[in-house]
């Protein structure tokens, strides 16, 4: 990796290992790097411990989504999904456990896969991407059992409501669609840009981030980041953040979101922006919280830079991992 390549690198996805001691990150060159958090967070950490312990090319195209199950790391790039065993990765072996492709209708351009989530109830993998459809794959057999069609433009983000077993998807067409995972039928469709409080026509109508917490839903993108009450299907608070948000999470009583602009925004449920913490990349694509491991409870963000910022105390940046 020469200095020019590093200058033009963007980090699109991150995932923590099941034990919580390792971080995998995917970039726009199709590479996945595995960092050792325990080494980077230990008291005698040096420059070398902020470099990846393993760096390999996983896909031809950018790795837009990474997901960790109990044993495997799933990566999505250029229309295919590959699985890598975490145990093998820690031992620095880069052989994929399996690679599968959902069936696409278009043949001219390969659609990318932007989001992946797991339905723990029936152990299935739900992916959404460039062909405007949501594909559901059974993890044990590897067969793609159903396709959810409804969006008119490509899908940016997915999330899953455990209690009602519903899938939420947000896309470029500005709609948030809610699907029932048992019957695979659409339940609701919310067009966020039609609501005046949220809409920002100067940016556009696409929805690029979704998050749910029991009855509440966060969504944002072209329209402002807003908190919705799902039972009443109406926005309760709108967050006055300047850029377009790409990822948002609920954490305890805070909402943390990243997007355009070199900062992580901390917001309260009421609609106020509590803090904006500065980071190294000039715009951020992904935010990840390591909640599985109490010793290494960190937040990491990555974006248009080859560096991934690590926050040990969520109020300020501690150090950066570098590809």
């Amino acid at each position, binding site marked *: 990796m020469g*200095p*020019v*390549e*590093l*200058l*033009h690198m*963007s980090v*699109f996805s991150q995932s923590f290992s099941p034990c919580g001691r390792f971080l995998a990150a995917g970039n726009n060159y199709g590479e996945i790097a595995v960092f050792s958090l325990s080494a980077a967070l230990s008291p005698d950490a040096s420059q070398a411990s902020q470099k990846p312990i393993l760096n390999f090319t996983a896909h031809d*195209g*950018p790795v*837009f989504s990474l997901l960790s199950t109990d044993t495997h790391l799933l990566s999505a790039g250029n229309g295919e999904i590959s699985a890598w065993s975490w145990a093998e990765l820690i031992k620095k072996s880069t052989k994929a456990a399996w690679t599968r492709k959902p069936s696409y209708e278009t043949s*001219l*351009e390969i659609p*990318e896969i*932007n989001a992946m989530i797991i339905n723990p109830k029936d152990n299935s993998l739900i992916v959404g991407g*460039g062909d405007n459809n949501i594909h559901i794959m059974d993890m044990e057999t590897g067969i793609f059992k159903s396709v959810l069609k409804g969006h008119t433009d*490509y899908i*940016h983000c997915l999330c899953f409501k455990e209690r009602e077993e519903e899938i939420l998807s947000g896309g*470029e067409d500005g709609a948030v669609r809610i699907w029932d995972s048992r019957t695979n039928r659409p339940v609701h469709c919310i067009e966020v840009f039609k609501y005046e409080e949220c809409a920002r*026509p*100067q*940016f*556009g109508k*696409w929805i*690029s981030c979704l998050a749910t917490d029991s009855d509440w839903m966060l969504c944002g993108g072209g329209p402002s980041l807003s908190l919705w009450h799902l039972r009443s299907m109406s926005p309760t608070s709108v967050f006055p953040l300047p850029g377009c948000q*790409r990822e948002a999470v609920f954490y305890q009583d805070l909402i943390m979101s990243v997007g*355009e602009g070199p900062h992580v925004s901390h917001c309260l449920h009421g609609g106020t922006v509590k803090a904006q913490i500065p980071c190294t990349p*000039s*715009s951020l*694509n992904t935010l990840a919280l390591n909640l599985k491991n109490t010793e290494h409870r960190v937040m990491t963000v990555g974006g*248009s830079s080859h560096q991934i910022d690590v926050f040990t105390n969520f109020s300020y940046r501690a150090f950066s991992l570098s590809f």
Partner: protein
Amino acid sequence: MSSDAVKKRKPKVIRNEAGTPETKRGRAEGEQSVEMEERRRQCSVHFITLKKLNRLAHMRLKKGRDQTHEAKQRVDVLHLQLQNLLYEVMHLQKEISKCLEFKSQHEEIELVSEEEFFQEAPAEISRPHVTRDDHHQLTLARLDWELEQRKRLAEQYKMSLARKEKIHKAIEQKREYLSSLQPGLQNIMQASLPVQECLSMPFEQMQKQAEVARHLPPPLYVLLVQAAAYGQACDKTLSASISGDVDEAKALSRPPEDSQDDESDSDAEEEQQNTKRRRASVGVQLDDKRKEMLRRHPLSLCVDLKCKDGSVLHLFFYYLMNLNILTVKTKVSTTTDLSGAVSAGELLNSESLLNCLYASDHGQETPNPTNRYQFDKVGITTFADYVSDLGHPYVWVQKLGGLQFSSDGAQVCVLMGSALSASHMERTMKLLQGRLQARLALHKQFSSLEHSIIPISGECQHLFPAKVVSGLTLVPVEQELGFVQHVLKAGLLRETDLFFMAVVERGTARLLAAVVVNPRYPEVMPLFSLSLHWKGERSGRTEDNLRAMESEVNMFRAELQGPRPGLQLLTNQIQRLCVCLDVYLETESQVCDGSEGPKEFPREKMCLRTARGPSRLKPFKYNHPQGFFSHR
């Protein structure tokens, strides 16, 4: 006197005796006188006995003394004898040891061994019947034999000397004969000059050059030999020649005593002058010392490299004697007139033409570490001040001259001298030619870029769509460009790089591109940084799509460099930049600021999807020959 003492005592005794019987005095006066007479008689007899005893004592004493004396004398004599004997013994012992240590000279002569002697010596000398028993005779015989041998050999030696003299004389005669031939040969050479020219075999010229080359300092000689060899073998376009003052060079190589005398004389003169002028010219003194240190050898080498299009790169190599380094100056002569491109004036500037021929070889500092100490003595802080005068001391120039300095990187090079020069010659010459061609091509491209024409050669047409609307102008560089900071932070912009600004315009949109061109273009790709002024200002740092455009132009060298020497790289990059701007502006129809109306830039490019991925990037990749745009 004892007799007197006795006499005196006596009367006392008498008186005492007489004292006591005082009552009897009157009556015994008569008895007293008889007694007194008796007593007097006894006294005298006692006196005489006393004297006799005294005398006897004396005599006895004397006798004893005499005896002692005699005995003593006897003992003394014996003692003397003993000592004499002892001395003699010692003396004899010394003599014996001296005799034993005596080494006769004959033992220092190396004699032949006994067996050899008996074998070689004739019978009358060896006399075996006598010598086998008697060691003394044997030694004598051996010495005789030695003497005879030596005499014989001395005679032989005299004869050989005489012969040698004769041969010496004969050689002298022949030499004289040969030297008399020399003028004759010269005449023949002169006469054959026209013949040589006719046949184009310039022996005369080469010989003259070889003659001058003898006076070259060693590094320049190595360079000349290797360059001429390379030129003959591989590259007919290379030619090397020597220029400079041969007489001065000859003067330099005179024996050192003369020069030392000169130095001491000049020193003395200097001192004299100093005392006269009261040291008013310390600065001038230092200046003179500096000039002396930086003196060039009077002879220099000129190497010409010709390119296919007729332009020539002239390299002048100089040798700095006291610093033991080579420097080079350049000159480019072209067949066409090159004035015109304003922003490209730097490209063929002789100061910077050969910068960084090998990575990080700037030629501003001397590569010889010992020079540091020499500079300290005369107060030179940086060699860079003198570089424009003396030429650039690039590391590859030292290697071509066979000079190897220990600071040359971590590799240990085992080659020295000619081997070092030969190993670098081919690569360096190729790099030099490549550099000249690249710069000339760049110069031409710049002249046409300044007229807003992007010259795309036929082989590269397939990289771009048929219609490109955006137009280009070159502008002078303004200071303090904010959107270039990231390049500075990454350490990719250096002093030696060429920096210029291009503006691509279409309608109301204006894209500024700051371009950094490394001196090693086209081995190193030029780096573009973008800033767009259209409905606000955005740069590659604030917007992901502009960043994607930057990576589209800055990377993908294999696609952009075109046919082999890769000289089309910069123009292809600029053309691609224009194409990307077209795509960006035409796909920006998503943005609606609420106002209806015709879009400023109608969609003309064919794209399948206008956004892809979480950052919604535009399709910048052009597919040939289908002619549509897709994402990477």
